[in-house]
């Protein structure tokens, strides 16, 4: 499948993300002739272990994330970042986890927004909001390059595109910038050939960044 980079908005120190920034970013896409196509939404859920003895918490993963992706409506992904595990399963795995009652879903977040076509690129700009609130927690952008599935072969063209994108956004003098962090996919057992498991890992990494920037 085509590869994608997931960028996230890094606010400048002392500032927070807001809907004005989201609006400006969307206008940037349109200013470079991105054709608005439709909506997209992915969902990320935090799972926590249910323990009889809370003092033994350290023995269990506290960073279990479940992800449902727009691009794979019948699949569900679990990521255990500390152990570098990404599991791909059918979406019925959520029902199994509910029946097991050993891990409970806590907070869920939506990544949602509009999708744009720009030549061989497909862009998705999205806000990050808790499922029961409009409280903006972050802004993300998926940059998908349709012709290529190889991470290595696409690296140059993706870097060139992101450079142009960063330059476009910087003209608006917004209090922050987009960042791209490339996970070490090999540590997760993933190859150069891009898959939705790669996407799930990128979401987990971005989530960790969003949490860190809120803390800071």
């Amino acid at each position, binding site marked *: 499948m085509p590869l994608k980079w997931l960028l996230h908005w890094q606010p400048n120190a002392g500032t927070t993300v807001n809907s004005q920034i989201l609006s400006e970013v969307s206008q940037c896409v349109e200013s470079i002739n991105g054709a608005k196509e439709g909506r997209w939404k992915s969902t990320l859920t935090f799972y926590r*272990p249910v323990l009889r003895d809370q003092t*033994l918490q350290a023995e269990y993963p506290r960073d*279990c994330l479940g992800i449902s992706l727009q691009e794979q409506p019948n699949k569900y992904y679990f990521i255990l970042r500390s152990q570098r595990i990404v599991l791909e*399963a059918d979406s019925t*795995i959520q029902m199994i986890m509910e029946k*097991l*009652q*050993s891990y409970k879903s806590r907070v869920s977040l939506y990544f949602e927004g509009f999708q744009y076509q720009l030549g061989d690129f497909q862009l998705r700009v999205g806000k990050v909001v808790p499922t029961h609130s409009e409280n903006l927690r972050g802004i993300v952008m998926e940059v998908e390059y349709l012709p290529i599935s190889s991470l290595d072969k696409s690296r140059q063209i993706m870097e060139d595109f992101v450079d142009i994108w960063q330059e476009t956004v910087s003209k608006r003098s917004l209090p922050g910038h987009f960042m791209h962090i490339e996970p070490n996919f090999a540590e997760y*057992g993933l190859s150069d050939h891009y898959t939705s498991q790669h996407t799930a890992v990128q979401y987990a990494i971005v989530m960790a960044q969003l949490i860190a920037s809120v803390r800071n």
Partner: protein
Amino acid sequence: MECVVQGIIETQHVEALEILLQGLCGVPKERLRIHELCLKSGPNLGAVASEVRLLCDLEQPEPTWTVRHVGGAMRGAGAEQISVLVRTVVESKASKNVLRFFYTLGYKLDHELLRVGFAFHFQRGAQITVTVTSVNKMLKLHATEEAVPVTPGIQLVEVTAPASSDNYTEVVAAISSFCEYLAPLLHLSKPNVSAGVVPTAAAAAASLMSNGGVT
């Protein structure tokens, strides 16, 4: 949900059963070689203990994994009266690192089995699957190549069909009706309600083998 009945048959009569099922089905059997790992939650995990099964299909060129959760059986006076077990089941395909995933969550291997045999699929009022398998245990951890039968000379027959809360009575009726075809060779009942082998099985098997053209 699924509806289930089980029975046992002596290995010497399995060939006759296969002839019978082939005759009813018309489509060749599907070979089965499934490594089943039963995982249970560690002592601290969950308010109540939980169990999940991982099934690895070794018959595929690239082994495929399924996660299976078997829930409670339907209860109540109505359930007592029907001869078929109705229970909740949820399955999910999963990537091959699923065992490592559950170990990391805090699940432990309780036991593992290798089921070897075959299956036939029927559409007779319900999507019925009949599996005939020898159940084998591994002498060393995950050593599927060195598995030995748990009950030598006896194989397990399972008749299952998926169901929903809307249609389970029809599915139960379809299974009960289907089981009558197999009655000469084996007695099928709810799991854990053992009825043993059928006394007339040998005669029925002999008849099937001669009719099946086996010389």
